[in-house]
């Protein structure tokens, strides 16, 4: 019995695969879909072409002064000329190397966390260094006054350096305070619980700007005579207290998601409160809430811009103070785009990192 040899399979219709198939499936699925696609394409071209022309084609990149810009496109010369101010603020230029060392250390701490293949132990120790020794070293380096370094008062700090300092310190301080507040809110002790609830709800109910105003106007009234903080420290206290309340709510969500059996198991093992929290509950709870915690970090990072309202010069503050310079005409858009890009890079990087971290710590607790 010799069956006829089977003919080769026909290829799928050309309209279903490849570029044409993709277009049909994703852009021209139906009449309405096709019309929407065409309208959007038209609008996109109408908007993007002039923007790219302004930002790249007609833009001026080289030069040293305002007259080097033709005025036809973006004047990136302005950014190039002021970049040092945007990064270092009023820091004396002879001492820039001290800030540069801090940036290098920061890169040393952060970069390996993103590079695949770096062993977990190295990452861990770099992380611990970043959270403990690095802030101290940076403070000594930037502030000076020790080891023969010329002291530089904090009102000279500014630009991106100040933004990163505020964000880094705020993040580092608000997470542990937030965890303690969250534990307090879940505590069995009525006094501790109500104190935590009141603290958290008050901070969450008011805008950060009023907290910063309060920190700058009312702290001096609350403190005994002779004790005074500088403006930067006051802003930091305000930011930390404010965001620790938000952090507490995020962490509380994680604590509530832990089944009661875990608490009981920890008790049954004879662990005391801090051990059962530190070894059993928190490691699980914090893993649940990584996205929320990082979202709070991102919000904190963005809200550091508010310090310019109480007179500190962060990135946005430095940009804001230079675009009104009469020597340059109409550079507001360029300045804001630069500042926006700076913030966007950090915030987007953080959100990507959190997704990455979530995947790495994923131990099957998610149903999907």
């Amino acid at each position, binding site marked *: 019995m010799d069956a006829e040899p089977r003919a080769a399979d026909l290829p799928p219709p050309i309209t279903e695969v490849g570029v044409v198939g993709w277009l049909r499936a*994703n*852009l021209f*699925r139906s009449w309405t*879909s096709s019309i*929407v*696609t065409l309208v*959007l*394409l038209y609008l*996109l071209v109408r908007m993007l072409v002039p923007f790219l022309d302004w930002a790249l084609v007609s833009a001026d990149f080289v030069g040293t002064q305002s007259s080097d810009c033709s005025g036809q496109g973006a004047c990136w010369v302005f950014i190039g000329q002021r970049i040092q101010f945007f990064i270092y603020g009023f820091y004396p230029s002879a001492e820039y190397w001290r800030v540069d060392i801090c940036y290098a250390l920061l890169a040393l701490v952060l970069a390996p966390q993103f590079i695949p293949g770096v062993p977990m132990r190295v990452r861990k120790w770099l992380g611990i260094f970043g959270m403990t020794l690095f802030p101290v070293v940076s403070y000594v380096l930037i502030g000076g006054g020790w080891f023969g370094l010329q002291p530089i008062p904090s009102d000279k700090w500014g630009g991106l350096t100040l933004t990163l300092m505020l964000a880094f310190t705020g993040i580092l301080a608000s997470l542990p305070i937030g965890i303690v507040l969250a534990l307090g809110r879940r505590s*069995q*002790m*009525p*006094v*501790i619980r109500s*104190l935590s609830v009141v603290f958290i709800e*008050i901070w*969450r*109910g*008011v*805008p*950060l*700007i*009023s907290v910063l*105003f*309060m920190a700058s*106007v*009312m702290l*001096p*009234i*609350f*403190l*005994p*005579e002779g004790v005074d903080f500088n403006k930067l420290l006051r802003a930091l206290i305000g930011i930390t207290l404010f965001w620790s309340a938000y952090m507490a709510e995020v962490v509380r969500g994680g604590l509530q998601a832990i089944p009661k059996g875990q608490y009981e198991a920890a008790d049954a093992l004879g662990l005391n409160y801090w051990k059962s929290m530190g070894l059993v509950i928190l490691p699980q709870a914090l893993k649940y809430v990584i996205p929320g915690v990082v979202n709070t970090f*991102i919000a904190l990072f*963005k*809200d550091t*811009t*508010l310090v*310019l*309202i109480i007179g500190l010069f962060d990135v*946005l503050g430095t940009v*804001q103070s230079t*675009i009104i310079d009469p020597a340059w005409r*109409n550079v*507001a*858009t360029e300045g*804001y785009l630069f*500042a*926006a890009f700076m*913030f*966007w890079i950090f*915030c*987007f990087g953080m*959100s990507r990192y959190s997704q990455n971290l979530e995947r790495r710590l994923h131990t099957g607790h998610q149903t999907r």
Partner: protein
Amino acid sequence: MPEHEQHPPASRPAPWRNPQVRAIAFQVIALAILAWAGYTIFQNTLHNMQERGIHTGFGFLGQPAGFGIIFSLIPYDETMSYGRTFLVGLLNTLLVSGIGIVLATIVGFIAGIARLSKNWLVSRIAAAYIEIFRNIPLLLQIFFWYFAVLRALPSPRQSMHLGDSVFLNNRGLYVPAPVSQPGMGLVWIALLIAIVAVIAVRFWARRRQLRTGQPFHTFWVGLAIVVGMPLVTFLATGRPISFDLPRLQGFNFSGGMGLIPEFVALLAALTIYTGTFIAETVRAGILSVRHGQTEAALSLGLPQGLVLRLVVIPQAMRVIIPPLTSQYLNLTKNSSLATAIGYPDLVAVFMGTTLNQTGKAVEIVAMTMAVYLAISLAISFVMNMYNRAVALKER
């Protein structure tokens, strides 16, 4: 014999090993520290205020303010009191947050649904909008709209205009103001009657559908009633409304309704920024409804539109409402950034100018914070009520 065996007396743990004793001790210590801190702050405050010659009290609210406010919903001038400035600022805050909440909700729902679109281009554009504007600080966006966009607009004489009625220039946006003539009252009454009629029709339609299974096109009939009745009245009473057009007079516009650039910039930034967060909330809510629900509804023979309206959206709302509430709260609190561009909101007018003039730091900061706390509590109260109404009712 076992009965005669002497049991050792049950050893009682030392007091510091007893969790209950420890808990009480811990709370007493916490209260003591709190009381001490409160007392110290109180003493310091009294002392410092005496040193600076500041008197406490709310008497300043009755004194004349002596400064002008560029935008006010209620009549205001320099001779009025600080209490009046408080009210003006509060109303301005409520105005911008109220309109912002409505606009951000619309933008957010559109962007959130668009991001789930099967059309690749639509979902990519929505994703790009969300990822770009979510990651840029709000203050920067406010500055951008105010200093880079609205300030760069032409002067009033070279306004961009839409016909003879809408003008946009660096002094703001000018639109015609509706002025009601006698007879407009009848139109409002007609609208009220129409709304009552629609509610009655809806009630009747539901009763009929339960009895006979016949659906009724409540939406279209209702729309016809709500639009038709006032329209007929409007035409019958001889169109009792006229528009006050903005006119260029000298260097500025008069007449019409002017929106100051500070307001427009703040509103644009708040809407665009909060819209991204609402979009993500909406997307998460819709994704949380399992696909089986859609399939079940389709297999019951419901058309696509009803599947969304009756099955997907009610279930998604349960997930959307709580985070949506906190976005509304954030928008309201973020409206205080107005102070950076000079829109006269509560923080700018009261915590800024009034505080600088009177030096009553404690009273003013406390009042401002209390207002925001009250607004926050009110919004959460309303949204929690709605949440209870749509929450899963397990039997």
